[in-house]
């Protein structure tokens, strides 16, 4: 029996927009192989969306790790409010949805054969390539902060063992100790992250080690959601958190893990627990392949999220300077879904659709005190990704406790819904 297609339904309903009434996949005729590197928010979202809208496509998702530990809510682990397992996601459901998940390292991109060379020497060919590899740390940008230093002064800016290490250090610290957090200059992954971290560590210290202090030595003079964080800290943790901006001598230039000291050039600070969040750039995979061009981050044409250096390769997430979009897991997921629509359309023989993106990020200052930032984005004629004027923004200042509690509850729901849609 002839299966109804869009043309049949259009004759029946005369509907101008079919999508709402047609129950089948959007791009049923799309064929080919899509390879995606990076099974985080960007890559896994792209893969899951492709399977939903273009089931005829072969989708291969490559990651070096067998599970994905989210940076979002990893600060809850640091604060003793969650376990590492609560923020760890496996790929079983992605596999069940028809994504071929390959656990491997990628050695090189081979443009002349449209393939990737994996670390085991094998090649993986593709019709479209998506890279969502995340960040790399600029080791040595802070004198003394190399890979070995991270085992003593954890960054915990890639979630997993580093998160657990930092948590163990916090648990082992004596009451009355000092926790130092050193956030970097922009741009870096998750702009409000270091300040949510300070908040949730403060929540832990206030209860368990009340004589302790947190010192933030910042390379910057301002930070994301600053007014809201400062207001919250004064309410929740008065006297516990001290933020030293760059202009007041907060910029760390060198560290010495052996003595647990940080040197700003004016003063040396000693911490009992030291969390250095070092300067960052795009991950090695894209950096070494020349995809960051003359800079340290990838740039893309927002119409398709194809690299401006190498059209045909889509790049997503933290590795990209995506115009007005912040570097967040939510942004990466939004980009991954849009990219899936582009690729499905192209492999279906059509044109890329108009794209739209959203970012919504919650920060928890305490289990019942949440704040948020939101943004809606479109693409201008030059391919720049711009915030829609007169929309978006952060939570209001001066809101009452009930408002903050609602946003905290929404934060829990946000995390559950976001991760479930991708991984469950």
């Amino acid at each position, binding site marked *: 029996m002839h299966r109804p297609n869009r043309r049949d339904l259009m004759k029946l309903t005369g509907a101008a927009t079919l999508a709402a009434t047609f129950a089948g996949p959007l791009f049923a005729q799309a064929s080919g192989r899509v390879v995606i590197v990076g099974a985080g928010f960007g890559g896994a979202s792209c893969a899951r969306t492709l399977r939903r809208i273009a089931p005829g496509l072969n989708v291969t998702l490559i990651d070096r790790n067998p599970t994905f530990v989210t940076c979002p809510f990893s600060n809850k682990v640091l604060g003793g409010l969650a376990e590492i397992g609560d923020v760890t996601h496996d790929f079983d459901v992605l596999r069940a949805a028809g994504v071929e998940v390959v656990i491997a390292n990628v050695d090189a991109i081979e443009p002349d054969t449209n393939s990737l060379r994996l670390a085991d020497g094998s090649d993986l060919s593709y019709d479209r390539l998506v890279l969502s590899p995340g960040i790399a740390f600029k080791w040595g940008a802070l004198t003394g902060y190399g890979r070995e230093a991270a085992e003593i002064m954890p960054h915990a800016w890639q979630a997993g063992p580093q998160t657990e290490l930092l948590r163990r250090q916090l648990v082992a610290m004596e009451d009355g100790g000092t926790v130092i957090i050193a956030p970097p200059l922009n741009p870096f992954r998750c702009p409000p992250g270091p300040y949510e971290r300070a908040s949730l560590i403060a929540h832990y210290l206030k209860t368990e080690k009340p004589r302790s202090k947190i010192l933030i030595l910042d390379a910057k003079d301002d930070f994301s959601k600053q007014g809201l964080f400062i207001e919250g800290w004064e309410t929740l943790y008065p006297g516990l958190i001290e933020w030293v901006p760059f202009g007041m001598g907060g910029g760390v230039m060198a560290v010495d893990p052996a003595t647990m000291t940080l040197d700003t050039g004016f003063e040396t600070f000693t911490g009992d627990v030291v969390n250095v969040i070092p300067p960052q750039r795009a991950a090695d995979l894209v950096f070494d392949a020349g995809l960051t061009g003359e800079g340290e981050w990838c740039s893309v044409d927002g119409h398709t999220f194809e690299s401006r250096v190498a059209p045909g390769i889509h790049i997503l997430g933290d590795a990209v300077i995506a115009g007005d979009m912040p570097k967040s897991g939510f942004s990466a997921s939004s980009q991954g879904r849009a990219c899936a629509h582009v690729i499905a359309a*192209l492999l279906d023989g059509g044109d890329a659709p108009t794209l739209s993106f959203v970012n919504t990020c919650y920060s928890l200052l305490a289990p019942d005190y949440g704040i948020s930032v*939101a943004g809606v984005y479109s693409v201008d004629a030059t391919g720049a990704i711009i915030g829609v004027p007169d929309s978006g923004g952060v939570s209001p200042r001066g809101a009452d406790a009930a408002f903050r509690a609602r946003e905290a509850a929404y934060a829990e729901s946000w995390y559950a819904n976001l991760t479930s849609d991708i991984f469950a």
Partner: protein
Amino acid sequence: MTRILSILLLTGAFAATSTAPVSGEDAPAELLAQGCVLCHGTEGRSSGDIPALTGHSAEEITNAMLDFREDRRENTIMGRLAKGLTDSEIDALATLIAQWE
């Protein structure tokens, strides 16, 4: 690094297949709806305190979004998001979301 970059540029191994869409068109409803799914759950089935988007008529969704956009309805975040959407985008979303059960 330089070798791969020059290969990419010289051989044009990646044909410039990016096709910019017709300007002025809205993003497709299914893509706009991804922005909702991310917080409200797969096909609007929410876990936790964020409201589910299932079981509403297109008119209810449209009215809610317009109320958020025009500051007629109390909210923590939806006003900021609704202000980023046009009438036609809200209309398309409402039609699609009304299908969610």
